[in-house]
Structures are given as C-alpha cells and as structure tokens.
C-alpha cells in the first residue's frame, strides 16, 4: 500500500554525505512517504525533468542522468514517471524557486531536480527532491562527484537518495552484479563470468568460455569474486580479483571436487562444499592460510552454505532427512536445526543482508519457486513460479531479489530476473546474452 503519511514525521538526514549547496530544513506539512508492505500499491507519480547543464560539456549528460534516475525509480515498481510532454512549466534554474502549482496540476507528487557540471574528466551532480503537495524540499540537496566515465554511478547515487528518503528503506541502485553469461544451445552451452551494473549496463567479461564457470559470489568489499571453475577438468574453487582479473585456485586436493563457495562477512573465511568418495560436506577455509575445517560430517549431501550477516551462523541445504531441506548451524559447525518444513524440496538458501529472512529455491509438484522465510521457518512466502527458477541473491538493502529463470524445452535459455520480496514487480534484467547464477554486490563506496 502506498500512502502519503499525514503525520509531521520528516525523514531528515538519511544521507549526510556530500556537500549541501543550499541546505534547508523543509517545513513539510505532509511529508512524502511510501510504506512498502505486502499489499498492491499504486505507484507514486514522480517528475524527473532534464537536469541543468552548468558547463558547456554537460548538456547531453544532463539529459542522460535524469533518464537513468527515472529508470531506477520506475524500475522499483513504486514510482510512475510523469512524461515531460505533460509538463506545464520546466526547470530552467536549479536554484530558482519551484512553481509547485504547475507540478501539482499534473499530479506530480515528487519532483527531482538536478544540475550537472563537467570539468575535464570530473563530473559534479547536484540534486534536490521536492514534495510537491507540501511545497517543500524532502531532505537537503546533495552533491556527488565522480568521473565522466562513471556518470551512471552518479545517477544511481541520486536515485538511491530519492528512494531512501521516500521509502525509508536502504539504498541499492549504486551496486553491481556478477553472473554467468550464457550462449549456445543447451547441449553446448558456453559460460563466462561477467560483471555489470545492477540494471544491466556496463557489462564486462571476467573469464573466457574455455571452461565451465559456475556460481560467482562477491566478497564483502566487492573487489573479489569466488566461483567454481573446470579449468583443471574438475570443479575447483577460484578467487578472482575484479580489478586485475587475476585468479588463483583455492581448493585443489587430489581426488576431490569443490564448489558452492561463499565469503564470510569478514572476507577472511570461505565456506564451501567438498565432494570426496561421492559424499558432499561443508568446509570452511581461511583464505590466507588455506587451512580448512570440516563443518558437517554426514553421508548426506550438504551444500549451498551462506553466512548470517554477523558471521555467527550458516544456513545450508541437506538431504539428510531424505529430501533437500534447509538447516542452520553455528559457523564453527555443530548441531544443525532444520528450518524448512513445507511441501517439496528446498535449496540454495541465502541469508538476507538485513538478517531477517532467508531466500531459497523451492521445487514442488514439478515447478520451481523463489521464496523467502524467516530464520525459524515461519512466514514462508513464494515470490515466483515457473518451469525453473533458481539461485536467489539479495540486493544490498534486503528488499529485492535477483535470480535466474530457465525456459523449457530444446530452445531453453536462462535469463536474469528481479522481484521485490513482497512478490511484486517481477521483471527481466537486460543482459547481452543469457544469464544465470547472479550475485549482487554490496553498495559501492
């Protein structure tokens, strides 16, 4: 449900970084606010006119930045953009007072204005967010600086501030996704690691397609990626530095296979699965010393481990009961508690960055679902259903999930999708070719 709260609460100071060119404490009567809950909401109408170019080189960028901000906001399903053709007045000066009546007349409830300055390779972007109906600024104006090449990041930072102020949720647009890029038919599929902005822009490839690569996972600082690769002919865990694209194998014990790696929140430890003699258990390894510790010891399949945000516990899947189910154990191993009890099979659990939920893949009656549940297994909610949905990953704010959907049959292919944790706003993520195994980065610094 979307509502404009009639309280006097004003969400100030949510983001305090950057300069405040004209810091004003708005005297808002009816602050703009979207409360995200599980019900259907009516998107909030927002106007994002082209930003003001404050230097001759900034003209095109002033238009492009506003387009990316609008795409970020409408992409959440929480906002609807008022087309510029409906505008009664335009913004011609970032610092001039806004004609609120003109924006109110076209039912724009939020108005985002901005100004762009380009000096050499340096880009400065300022923005303000207005609550049109109360005729006041929501929060203070902010300024971001970056490089011209990184202009999309500046747009995402503006969007993050707008989104956070209006929803009260954490930001997530200034983030990246590492995934497996797929081409070719099902029986000759080529896989490469690729990295992109959260919205599918700026795709770069990190490996070639010479060997199978699977399930990349970001480090907590977003500068390294763990993945499973078949370069040696056997599945092995690699760690890859995104900047240099240098990689090294982490676990290569003869006669074993290792896969499903994931970093601990500290980045010092890697938890993963190791198969030996047909049996798959969970191990953890100190990434610097290479010392490993066995965390589970059963004849069952134990895999897909994921740490709690505080690093104290691990959620994983096991078929020790006879079918795949979800369990939680201490990060040092020991007794595990089963948390999934619904119908069907549960796999690929991922702990939410907020700590409150686990996302999973569920198989039931020949269908696959992405779902979430609380850590005690209660309040299970299925967000999607299809022939094959799998591998959820959390946006940095814990509100949105990305996953892969594979279509059925001879021509089947895999596409990345995102969905809100309320199950709303299911949409494909645009990538140059097929995609699977997405992993969302932390918010960029």
């Amino acid at each position: 449900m979307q509502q404009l709260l009639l309280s006097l609460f004003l969400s100030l100071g949510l983001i305090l970084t950057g300069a405040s060119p004209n810091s004003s404490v708005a005297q808002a009567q009816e602050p703009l606010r979207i409360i995200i809950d599980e019900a259907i909401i009516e998107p909030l109408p927002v106007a994002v006119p082209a930003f003001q170019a404050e230097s001759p080189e900034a003209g095109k960028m002033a238009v492009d930045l506003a387009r990316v901000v609008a795409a970020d906001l409408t992409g959440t399903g929480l906002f609807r953009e008022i087309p510029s053709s409906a505008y009664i007045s335009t913004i011609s000066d970032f610092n001039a007072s806004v004609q609120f009546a003109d924006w109110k007349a076209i039912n724009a409830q939020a108005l985002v204005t901005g100004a762009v300055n380009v000096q050499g390779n340096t880009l400065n972007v300022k923005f303000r967010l207005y609550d049109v109906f109360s005729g006041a600024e929501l929060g203070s104006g902010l300024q971001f600086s970056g490089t011209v090449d990184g202009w999309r990041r500046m747009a995402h930072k503006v969007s993050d501030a707008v989104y956070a102020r209006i929803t009260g949720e954490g930001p997530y647009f200034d983030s990246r996704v590492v995934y497996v890029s797929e081409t070719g038919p099902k029986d000759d599929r080529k896989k490469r690691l690729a990295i992109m902005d959260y919205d599918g822009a700026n795709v770069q490839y990190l490996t070639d397609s010479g060997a199978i690569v699977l399930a990349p996972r970001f480090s907590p600082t977003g500068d390294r990626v763990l993945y499973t690769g078949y370069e040696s002919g056997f599945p092995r865990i690699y760690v890859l530095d995104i900047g240099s694209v240098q990689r090294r194998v982490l676990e290569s014990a003869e006669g074993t296979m290792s896969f499903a790696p994931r970093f601990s929140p500290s980045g010092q430890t890697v938890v993963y699965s190791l198969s030996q003699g047909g049996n798959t258990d969970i191990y953890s390894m100190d990434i610097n010393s290479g010392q490993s510790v066995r965390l589970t010891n059963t004849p069952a399949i134990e895999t897909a481990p994921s740490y709690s945000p505080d690093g104290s516990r691990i959620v994983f899947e096991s078929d020790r009961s006879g079918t795949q189910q979800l369990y939680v154990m201490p990060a040092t191993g020991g007794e595990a508690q089963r948390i999934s009890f619904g119908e069907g099979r549960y796999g690929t659990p991922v702990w939410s960055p907020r700590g409150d939920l686990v996302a999973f893949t569920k198989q039931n009656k020949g269908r696959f679902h992405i779902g979430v549940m609380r850590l005690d297994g209660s309040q299970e909610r299925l967000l999607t259903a299809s022939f094959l949905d799998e591998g959820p990953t959390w946006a940095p704010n814990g509100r949105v999930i990305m996953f892969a959907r594979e279509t059925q049959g001879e021509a089947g292919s895999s596409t990345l999708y995102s969905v809100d944790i309320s199950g709303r706003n299911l949409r494909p993520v645009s990538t140059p070719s097929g995609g699977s195994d997405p992993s969302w980065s932390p918010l960029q610094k």
Partner: protein
Amino acid sequence: MKRFLTYSLLIAALGLTACTNPDRFGSDSLDAGTNTGTTGGIIPGSANDPASTAYFQQAVGDRVLFEVDQSTLTNQGRTTLDGQASWLLTNTDYQAVIEGHADEQGTRQYNLALGARRANAAQEYLISKGVPASRLKVVSYGKERPIEICSNEACYAKNRRAVTVLAGGLTS
C-alpha cells in the same frame, strides 16, 4: 572436437547409429588420441577393434543410467559395469574418468553433489570387480552437460548418467 569428428566419421563408415556418439565434453588432455593406419581386417581404433575406445563405447557400453534423484545402480547398470570392468582388466593401458551427470530438474549445487554420488557409485563398483582405484578418477558435471535437450522424461532419463571416459591406450 577432433576426437568427436573422428568418431563421427568412423561411426558413419560402419553404419552404426548416431545415438552412440560419445560425450563431447571429456577433458581432451585425458582422452585417447586418434588412431591411424590399418592392421589386417581390423581398423585400429574403430569399433571392430576390441581394444579401441570406440569398441568400449559401443560394444561394451560406456554409460549407466539412474532413476530420478537416485545414485543406486540398476541391474542393467551393473551388467554394463561388469563389461566395463572386464574390458579395463584386459586393456590395462587405459585409465578412465567417470563423469557423473544429472538431469535439469534440480538446483545447480545439489546436482553437482548428485553427479558426484553417481560417478562414485560406478567407480566403487568397478573397483569391487578388481579395477585398480589408481586407474579411475571421478568428476561431476551436475546438470551442466546434458546430451539430450528436451524437457521431458525421455531426455531426462538419458541425462541421468555416469559415463566412463577412457584415457590413455594405444597412442598414449
């Protein structure tokens, strides 16, 4: 790819069915090389040469199939593996990598673990029949390397497999 093309030509020349094509995805460095030259009526390396990989694949049978989500060998699977064990004990120049595979109906990591179980089941059986463990390796491909691409049981049944891929041999 070179190996695949060679086999395809041999199979075509012998009028054998195409469904016996070997997996194309073995680790090439471990695979037997191609053979050239002839000896009497037997073309070395072809399916009528009992010491060839082609013979192993087609006459002995290089794969065993599994039930849904199972890694227990079927009776037919045991019979095939009996033949493989006997062949490997005769042709001691060869080593083998047993590839475990799953159908697409499962999550990626689980299927990797399931493929490992299947490859291991075949390996243990061969060892129990006297094949030295030192000649056998296992690898799981999970659901990454289907040979049949339809999304129904007819294809899934062929994809749930453990394939014994030979390495070494005459030209090694």
